[in-house]
């Protein structure tokens, strides 16, 4: 090694060292920042960035500024694990993520070994059913979600034929199974039970089959991208279809891609945080920054608020203290008061049925 490189290395090392001495507190988000569900990742990032700017403006957490690390798993379970390893390496103390259940499940195994607190919006029951002490869920579960949407279908479409379709993903199949179970329990048996391949473009085969069976309502477990294509192609084929989906249908991309065919899509989601009076100033702030706080934006904001309050109450950022405080308290966030049950699920989860109409969604009546 010649002198110049030696000097440069020394300077670099020094720089790294002084950086560590003044370190900010690293917290992270992870989700599909690229790939076909990137618009959800975008919502999470915007929510988290705003929350961290606000928290740092208030002086940070325990006198330390927060620093946001962003992980991109593209909803690929393999990539999720490598993102998790990177985040552990960066020494994060809190993770809001991942987004896809199929990513959260393997990634959380990495976080539990590294003693990192996780607050996720993934809805597959298995996320909290595995008994990991570090995983908390700030949204409801698919079995609760399916109960609400399946019940709604049984109540409102009693005399119609209903098909239950999923996209074979952990999230999609789980939700579809729960919807079918809830419908059957209320006395409406699904006429068809089908599955599609996510990422395909042609659904004419499925649509023909639905048309042949006289199906008017489709309960769908999966993501909005496939629903948009199915709706568009159903409309072209002259099939009038009412779709009931899960929380992923909050994405406005559904309307961009499906156009007017997206009208009357029903879905379940937590009560609209934008309607929560306590959230009004934050909602205002997002709109002033030209970000519509839809879907997961306020959830990401709430996750960071949650960490701020837990760490402040625990007077520490050590994992054991954080976890203990998290289980014991009730925390006031923009999505409402959060407290957690023994498994890490929300104590009072709520799901409401919404309907898309003219590019907006609102409570379905």
């Amino acid at each position, binding site marked *: 090694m010649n002198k110049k490189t030696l000097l440069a290395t020394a300077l670099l090392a020094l720089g790294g060292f002084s950086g560590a001495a003044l370190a900010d507190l690293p917290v992270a988000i992870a989700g599909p920042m*690229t*790939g*076909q569900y*990137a*618009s959800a990742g975008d919502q999470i990032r915007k929510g988290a960035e705003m929350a961290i700017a606000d928290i740092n403006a208030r002086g940070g957490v325990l006198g330390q500024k927060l620093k946001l690390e962003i992980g991109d798993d593209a909803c690929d379970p393999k990539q999720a694990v490598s993102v998790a390893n990177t985040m552990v390496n960066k020494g994060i103390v809190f993770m809001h993520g991942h987004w896809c259940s199929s990513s959260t499940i393997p990634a959380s195994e990495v976080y539990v070994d590294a003693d990192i607190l996780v607050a996720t919006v993934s809805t597959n029951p298995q996320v909290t059913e595995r008994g990991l002490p570090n995983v908390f869920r700030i949204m409801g579960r698919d079995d609760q979600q399916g109960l609400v949407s399946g019940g709604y279908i049984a109540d409102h479409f009693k005399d119609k034929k209903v098909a239950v379709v999923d996209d*074979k993903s952990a999230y999609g199949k789980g939700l579809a199974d729960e919807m079918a179970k809830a419908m059957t329990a209320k006395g409406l048996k699904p006429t068809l039970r*089908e*599955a*599609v*391949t996510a*990422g*395909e*473009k*042609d659904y*004419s*085969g*499925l649509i*023909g*089959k639905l*048309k*042949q069976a006289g199906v008017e309502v489709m309960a769908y477990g999966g993501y909005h*991208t496939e629903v*948009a*294509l199915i709706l*568009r*192609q159903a409309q*072209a*084929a*002259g099939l009038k279809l009412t779709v009931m989906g899960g929380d992923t249908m909050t994405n406005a*991309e559904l309307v*961009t*891609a*499906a*156009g007017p065919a997206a009208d009357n899509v029903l879905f379940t989601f937590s009560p609209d945080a934008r309607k929560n009076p306590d959230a009004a100033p934050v909602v205002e702030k997002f709109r002033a920054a030209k970000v519509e706080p839809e879907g997961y934006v306020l959830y990401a904001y709430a996750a960071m608020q949650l960490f701020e309050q837990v760490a402040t109450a625990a007077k520490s950022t050590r994992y054991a203290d954080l976890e203990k405080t998290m289980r014991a308290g009730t925390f006031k966030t923009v999505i409402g008061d959060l407290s957690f049950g023994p498994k890490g699920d929300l104590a009072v989860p709520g799901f409401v049925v919404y309907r898309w109409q003219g590019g907006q969604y609102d409570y379905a009546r």
Partner: protein
Amino acid sequence: MAYALQQLINGLTLGAMYGLIAIGYTMVYGIIGMINFAHGDIFMVSAFIAVTAFTLLAAADVSSIPLALTFVLIVSIFFTSAYGWAVERTAYRPLRGSTRLAPLISAIGMSIFLQNAVQLTQGARVKPIPPVIEGGIVLWDTPAFTVQIGWSQLLIIVTTVTLMAAFTWMITQTPFGRQQRSCEQDRTMAALLGVNVDRTISLTFMLGAALAAVAGVMVTVYYGVVDFFIGFLVGIKAFTAAVLGGIGSLPGAMLGGLLIGLIESFWAAYLWAEYKDVATFGILCLVLMLRPSGLLGRPEVEKV
């Protein structure tokens, strides 16, 4: 019966699109003996060019559909052929004459490059266009089921048939077709007899890309939604179609495409839709076991 007819129409539309792309695979294999794995992504690029062209037209307030379609087709074919040419020139020609595996790896690299370039420059979100061609004809109205063929489906089938006829004529009757067939049989001999081999290969790539561009425009019109990942699955299916029909054979590629479209749509219609891809590739394995060179392929004769 009406239901089966509807699924036949759906299958033919899908198959016609696979066939158009499969020709690109089969022609390139025929002439230089490599699988151009970037071909599916060339198709994806063409769909993006079509979306851009449609958006431009909408901004310019062009409302005549035939005029708009012609313009988009020309623009997409032009730029996509340029892509096809550039890919061959940069990724494959420098490797000609090296080992058989080198251009194959280079093709996979090109595929990843194109996918990521489009994702970064165009964004990962889906790009929708408003429906261009709406409505269709009701062919058969039974009380139980209404058979419909959309104008866009009709357009796809008619365009494919016309293009195939034009293509067959070009390969069998024109001087370029003769040159191409001679390169396919023996490149050295063709060069000795005064055929410009490099030019012929370049043109072959451009023609394959042009057909993929037609498929790209059709997909954009028919489905209305494109994203950077559409080339992958369609590319694999079209490649399968080319192998099923007998790689290197033009009618084989078309037949393979139609067969795969029909298998997919009938399997999804009468059996379990979730096992559709399993069925497609299962049938491919069966055909290859019984006829290793595909349905219409000729067994390769080893030249000594």
